[in-house]
Structure formats: structure tokens, C-alpha cells
């Protein structure tokens, strides 16, 4: 697709647009909002950037993510114009080489791109950080995540079966975007740990392979972290195969239990890292030969049956985010591994 130069004339019908976008494989299977010149202009007006500015090159199709191309996809996804600076920051974050967009677009792994917002933008733009924040029902969460996927498809060329080689994929490839619940978190917000000021608005992008819920009613922090760590011990995840590190989306109630008992984020990371290690004997011979030995020998030395494999290179590689509504569910999010999460400021608000 070369949206900079193409203007498509279609009947004035939502069905005709849906059919055409489906035929062109520009969509995700769901109906799209027609990207009319008026709507795209409104989207562009929400950003201070030049429409021809490139936010980066999106592999594997090597398309240039111009602000205009991203605006067209954000329009199709149903974004309100005020969300657009979040989308542009997300695309920029994904184009950082260490994010390895090529790898996660073209792999057979089911990896999806996830993201979350921190700072004043959460409330200003109506992102959901509480009830069902990883699920359906909030326009900003749903459409920003969807816009990111449409950019990966139409600018990056990641179409299933073609350049997107995923064996199964996963539902989060439609959309996976939320906000940290800073108001209900007892700890400093995630973006502060990533080097930003607490008053900054940021977007964090990460490559994940699904979500696993962890129901835990204990108010004993040691018991809680033990239960979480045991759940994290999945030999088939890329955390162990590719040096992690996973995300935990902690329920505010769980975070308060931990903090109330004197557990800082760092102490939680330290304990989870130690307790979630898996002995090499629990991996298949093929996994040890093809993945663990090439990945870990430089850090752990020669691997033996009782060598403990961690879920990330260091405790700080376990990423802790507080989000969700009341109750006692924390979500374990295994990671793609060969991709470093990126936190970028949302900077291109209109002048």
C-alpha cells in the first residue's frame, strides 16, 4: 500500500469499503472506518509532526512509517484524533532496532505487540487502567492497539501466511493496549523506572506471547511470590529459551499486600527471579541443545541437569506493571525474548 499517492474512489457505502479493504488485505478481519481525506486530515491535525516525516522503517516489508501512513491506519482502526500522538510514539518505539520488529513480525512464534501508557495521557485520553483493562470495552485501548497492528500489516507487510509466518498467532494480535493504574499503585510508576519523569506521558511497547491469570488470595507476601514464581516456570516459553524477561501485570490489591509488607519492586523482582528458575533437566534434550546452550552458556557456564535457568538475564529483567480493578488476579505475560521493551515519551502533541 502506498497511501501517500493513492486515492481510491468507492461507492458511498460502509459495506463497499469493508469489502474492498478485505479484498486488499488491508484490515484485520473486522470492519474499518473509511479513511476519507477529511478524517485523515483530522487525525493529522492532532500531531505537530510533518505528514511526510518517517517514524522509522517497518520490517519485513521495509515500509516507511510516514506520519501520513500511520494516520490512515489509525483512522481505519477507529482512533479518535487525540489518540494519534500515542500511536506515533508507539510506532517509533517499535522501530528502535533493539525491539527487533523484523524478528517478531516474521517469526513462527505467536508473538503479539503489547503496549501501555503512563502519565497524564492516561486520564486525558481516557485509557482504561482498571476493570477489564486488558479486555474489551474501551475505545482508546482497543483502537490504539488495533492501529498498531494495522500499521504492522499495511506498512510492515506482516500479512498472515505471507510475511507474517506465525504458526497460530494469538488473540492479542488484534489489539493489546492498556494503561498502568498509577492511582492505585503503591509503587513508583513503570515509566519512572525506565528513566522518565513522573509527570511525563510515555508509551511502553513489548513483545509478548499471551497472558496467564494467577488467582491468589494469600496476604502473605512470601506465599504470594512463591505461587507467582511457580506459575512462571513454563519451560516452553521464550523467557527461558531467549533470556526473557517477562511482564507481570499486578493487581493493585496484590501490589498493596507486597508493599505493605515492605516489599519494594526490586525485592519482588529479586525473589521472583530466584524462585522461578527451572533446572535444565526439565527441558527436552532438543531444547537444551538448540536453545539453552547457545543462549545461556556465556552467563551460566556449561549446563548440567541441575543448572538453574532464570526467566531473564537479571532480576531487573522482570517487568512489573500495576493495572486492573479490584480483586486478586495478577497476570503473567511471557515475553518473546529476543526483543527489548521500549519506553518513549509522547511528544508530538499539537503546538
Amino acid at each position, binding site marked *: 500500500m502506498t497511501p501517500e499517492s493513492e486515492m481510491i474512489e468507492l461507492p458511498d457505502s460502509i459495506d463497499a469499503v469493508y469489502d474492498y479493504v478485505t479484498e486488499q488485505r488491508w484490515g484485520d478481519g473486522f470492519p474499518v472506518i473509511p479513511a476519507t481525506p477529511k478524517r485523515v486530515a483530522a487525525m493529522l491535525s492532532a500531531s505537530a509532526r510533518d505528514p511526510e516525516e518517517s517514524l522509522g522503517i517497518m520490517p519485513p516489508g521495509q*515500509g516507511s512509517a510516514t506520519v501520513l501512513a500511520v494516520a490512515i491506519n489509525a483512522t481505519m482502526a477507529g482512533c479518535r484524533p487525540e489518540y494519534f500522538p500515542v500511536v506515533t510514539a508507539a510506532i517509533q518505539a517499535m522501530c528502535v532496532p533493539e525491539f527487533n520488529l523484523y524478528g517478531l513480525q*516474521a517469526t513462527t512464534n505467536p508473538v503479539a505487540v503489547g503496549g501501555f501508557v503512563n502519565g497524564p495521557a492516561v486520564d486525558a485520553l481516557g485509557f482504561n487502567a482498571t476493570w477489564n483493562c486488558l479486555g474489551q470495552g474501551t475505545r482508546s485501548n482497543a483502537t490504539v492497539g488495533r492501529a498498531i497492528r494495522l500499521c504492522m500489516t499495511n506498512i510492515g507487510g506482516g500479512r498472515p*501466511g505471507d*510475511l507474517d*509466518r506465525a504458526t497460530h498467532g494469538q488473540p492479542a494480535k488484534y489489539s493489546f493496549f492498556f494503561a498502568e493504574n498509577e492511582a492505585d499503585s503503591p509503587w513508583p510508576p513503570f515509566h519512572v523506572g525506565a528513566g522518565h519523569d513522573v509527570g511525563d506521558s510515555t508509551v511502553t511497547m513489548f513483545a509478548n506471547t499471551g497472558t496467564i491469570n494467577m488467582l491468589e488470595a494469600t496476604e502473605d507476601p512470601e506465599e504470594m511470590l512463591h505461587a507467582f514464581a511457580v506459575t512462571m516456570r513454563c519451560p516452553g516459553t521464550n523467557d527461558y529459551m531467549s533470556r526473557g524477561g517477562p511482564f507481570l501485570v499486578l493487581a493493585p490489591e496484590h501490589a498493596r499486600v507486597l508493599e505493605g509488607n515492605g516489599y519494594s519492586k526490586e525485592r519482588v523482582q529479586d525473589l521472583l527471579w530466584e524462585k522461578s528458575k527451572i533446572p535444565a533437566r526439565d527441558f527436552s534434550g532438543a531444547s537444551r541443545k*538448540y536453545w539453552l546452550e547457545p543462549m545461556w552458556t556465556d552467563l551460566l557456564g556449561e549446563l548440567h541437569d541441575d543448572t538453574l535457568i532464570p526467566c531473564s538475564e537479571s532480576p531487573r529483567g522482570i517487568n512489573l506493571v500495576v493495572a486492573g480493578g479490584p480483586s486478586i488476579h495478577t497476570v503473567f505475560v511471557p515475553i518473546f525474548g529476543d526483543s527489548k521493551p521500549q519506553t518513549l515519551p509522547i511528544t508530538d502533541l499539537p503546538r
Partner: protein
Amino acid sequence: MIKRGVQGVLVASQVFEPLARGEASAYGYEDLKILVMPHPFGSLTRAEVTQLADDLAPRLATLVDRP
């Protein structure tokens, strides 16, 4: 394909053949010849890769353009 005096043949495993063709096209090399080999490839050991390369060398030679 010869560019700047250097022979170029793209080697891809079977599962990634469409990706290889798409990637070649994205860079403007639609005519780039591609040697397709068995999958998986990324998880092979160094010794296995060496053996595979020896096995594939005759087919690779047929894809090289003559100057």
C-alpha cells in the same frame, strides 16, 4: 544476481520461503534467486549447519549467475 561484482543467492528454509521472496521484493530484487532448504534451520548446531551447507553446495552452484 551480480551486484558490484559479488554473486548473490538468497538461502531460506522452506517455512520462510514466502518471507524470503517478499523481503527480496521489498528491497527491489524480485529476480534474486532463492535456494530453499529444509526447515528448521535456526536451531541447528554448527556441525549440522556445516553438513547442510556441504549437501546444498551443488544446488547452490546451479543458481550462481555466470559473469
